[in-house]
Structures are given as C-alpha cells and as structure tokens.
C-alpha cells in the first residue's frame, strides 16, 4: 500500500500551465485520516487556512524549511560529490565519443537546487556545461536563485516542466524524485527522456532495503526538526523502488537507452548503499562510459 508524502498532498499544479491550484485543507486532512495516517493528518491540519484551502504562503514557508533540512541530509551523505563522481565520467564519455555540442545538464524537480548549486560551487562543470535546475514550485525555484546569486554561482533555475524546456537536456538528473512516480506514471516519466538531444540520465533515489524504514526513521529523528520533514523522510524510504522496477520502467518507457543500476552495493560486498542510481545512456556512448568510469565501472549492474 502506498504511503503518500505530505509534501505531495499540500501542493497541486496544473500539469499543462504549471499554475498552482488550491488544495482543500479538510479534504487533505481527511485523505490521510482515511489511510490511517493520523500523524500526517495532524501535520496538515496545522497549516493555516485561506478560504477553505491551505494557505499557499504558509505551505511555501514550511516547504522552504523542509528543503533546507533536506539539504542538510544531502550534505551528510555527500550527495553532491556522489553525483559528481558519476556525472564527470559521463560527460567525459560523451565528449570522448564525439559529442561536440554544448551540453546541458538539467536537474528534474530540483527544489532549492542543492545538486546544481553544489556542482557549480565545488566543481569545474559550470565552465563546461550548462547547469540548470527545474521545478514546478515557484517559491522553491526563487529560493534556489537567491541562494545561487548570493554565492555568485554559474547556474540557472527555471519554473518549468524539465522535459518541456525550449531546449532539451543532454543529461537529466534527479534526486529523490523517482519514488513519487508509481506504476505507469514511472514508465511515462522515463518516456519523456526519449528526445533526440537527450544522451543520458542519472536518477538518484533511496534504495529499498530491510533496514531502510527503521534507519530512515532513526536518522530523521536525530537530524530533522520539522515534523513534515521527518514524516516524508520515512515515507520516501518506504516508497523507494527496487532496481528491477526502475530498469523495467526505463526499458518500457525509453527503450532507446542502455540502462542499468549504479552504485547499489558497496564494492563487491552484499552491503546495500542507502541510495542507488538508475542510469541510461544512448548505445553509441555505452562503451565510452564504461571506459571513463574506470574502476567505478564495477558499480554498474544490469547494464544492458
């Protein structure tokens, strides 16, 4: 049974216009109550109300705080470095295989843009490629821009559907996004990658393991202050997709890519990492990627 996250329930966007739609407060509370999730119902009930709907300013305020705390989690897991350690050889492989066009790396559902900002601040990538973060949520994108400007970072953030930008991405990334898509929606998510300009993708998300829910609960208990962030952190671990589900969705939705899982295990040990990555690359660049990864090529599994 799916365990929806509060952050999904308290915002609603028109998928065509991306305009924000009001969320009826009582309906949102009742939806969690009907699922037996009284804790989530209490959290949603705590939001201010405006004309029967959740006050969007209050929702934005809380989601900004939640994303700040989420960034702390990303920092504790060195996620920026983790992304770079895959992205650098990927970009090298694309160039080595003859790709000469200016490459665009787009972070899907970027939130306050931690990954893009980290790459711009800590690596040489900003001078080599376009780093772009895209999200539906205006308040989060504005926060991402403000933070990037404060540090003088070379990157851009847009309120947009990442798959409907005027120029498609060469590489799509995401962090903690995939588990929000269930069943056929996951296949449709990957289907959107199948554009001529798109050469590769790497989507990082929690890996479901036996210990993930309790580990996630413990870690969020000691690190998160916001009840919403604690709730959604555990829900993310519970909802995470297995590698086989992700690769099946890619094969069904974007068969033009060679796909596989990256970094699911620690070395050759049967010890799962907290996050795994579903990667995809056009067949013409596959061998170049394996070569560019070097010793880390051993982290690729089911890569066909």
């Amino acid at each position, binding site marked *: 049974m799916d365990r929806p996250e509060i952050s999904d329930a308290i915002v609603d966007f028109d998928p065509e216009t991306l305009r924000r739609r009001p969320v009826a407060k009582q309906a949102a509370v009742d939806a969690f109550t009907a699922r037996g999730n009284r804790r989530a119902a209490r959290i949603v009930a705590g939001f201010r109300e405006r004309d029967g709907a959740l006050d969007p300013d209050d929702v934005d305020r809380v989601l900004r705080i939640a994303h*700040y705390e989420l960034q702390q989690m990303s920092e504790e897991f060195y996620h920026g470095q983790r992304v770079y350690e895959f992205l650098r050889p990927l970009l090298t492989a694309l160039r080595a295989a003859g790709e000469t066009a200016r490459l665009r790396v787009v972070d899907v559902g970027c939130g*306050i843009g931690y990954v893009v900002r980290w790459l711009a601040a800590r690596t040489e990538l900003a001078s080599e490629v376009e780093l772009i973060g895209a999200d539906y949520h205006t308040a989060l994108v504005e926060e991402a821009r403000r933070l990037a400007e404060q540090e003088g970072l070379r990157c851009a953030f847009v309120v947009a559907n990442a798959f409907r930008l005027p120029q498609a991405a060469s590489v799509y990334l995401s962090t903690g996004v995939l588990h929000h898509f269930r069943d056929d929606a996951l296949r449709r998510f990957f289907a959107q990658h199948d554009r001529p300009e798109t050469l590769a993708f790497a989507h990082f998300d929690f890996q479901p393991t036996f210990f993930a829910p309790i580990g996630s609960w413990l870690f969020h208990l000691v690190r998160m202050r916001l009840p919403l962030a604690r709730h959604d952190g555990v829900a993310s671990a519970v909802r995470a997709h297995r590698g086989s589900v992700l690769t099946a969705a890619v094969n069904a939705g974007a068969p033009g890519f060679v796909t596989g899982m990256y970094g699911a295990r620690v070395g050759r040990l049967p010890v799962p990492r907290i996050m795994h990555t579903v990667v995809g690359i056009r067949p013409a660049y596959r061998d170049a990627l394996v070569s560019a990864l070097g010793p880390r090529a051993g982290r690729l599994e089911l890569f066909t």
Partner: protein
Amino acid sequence: MTAVLTLYLLATLDAAMSGYRSAGGRVALIRKHSYQARAQARGALWGQVGILAVALVVAVVLLVDSDPPRLAADLLEACRRLLVVYLPYSFVFLAALLLRVLPSVDLRSTLNVLVFGPFTLLRPFVGLAGVAYAYTGVPRWQVIAIGVLGLAAMLSVEWALNWWYARTSQR
C-alpha cells in the same frame, strides 16, 4: 585534576557539537565553513555557561560541607568514574571525525549513518550511565546532584540554541 580538566574538555567539545547540530539545516549555502565554525564556537561558548554553573554549585557544596577535603577527594573519584563511561564514547566519536578526512563518499556517509547519527541518539543515555556509574562508586547525594545538573546543562545547550535560532530566524 587531570580528570577534571579532561571532563571540562569533553564538555566543551560536546557543547561545540551541540552548536554544530543546532545550526544544521538552517543555512542552505554551499560554502559555509565559516558559518559552521561560528556555530561550533557559539555552542562551545554557551556550554561555558552551564559548565560555570556546575563549577559554582561544586564550590558551594564544598564550602558548606562538614569535611571539604574528603568531599573533594570523593568528587574527584566520581570524575574518574564518569570518564570510564565518557572516554570510550568520545574516543569512538573522535576517531570517526578523524576518519572523515579520508576522501571516500561511502566511508564518510557510512560514518554519519553508523556513528554520528546513533551516537547523537545515545548521548543522553550515555550521560546518565556515566552519572549512575559514578554514584555506584561514590554513593553520595552530591555526586547525583552535581552529575544530573551537569547533564542537564550539557543537554540544554542544543535546546537553548534551537530556541535562539527560532527567535532570530528571518526565514
């Protein structure tokens, strides 16, 4: 006196870590070493308030006791017993901190998951265990009173800093 000094250093380190934890998740800049350093310094400084309060209580307790030299010796023994519990905990924590300089994303994040996170959760219980162990060896009410006061002072640093951040936050 070495035991007292060691306890003082551990308490200051603990307060600095409280400063680090309470500052976490409040600033979303990428480059924030100076912010984190200031947060740790703030924690260490606020911790001195609690340490000073405990020192004052110890001084008063010694002054009013009928046999101050005997009590002082007992309190010193209690300090040594506190360290029997606190030093191994601190050693593992510090060793994990040192290991974090190694440039491995897996190692660093594993240390966070297996050491820093759980040790934060265990901290109050380790504190209590230390006081209990000190009391079993030195069964005087002053040991319990000063031990509990010291524990409360250290545990309240993070709480006080969270309150301060909430009041001064402009987000």
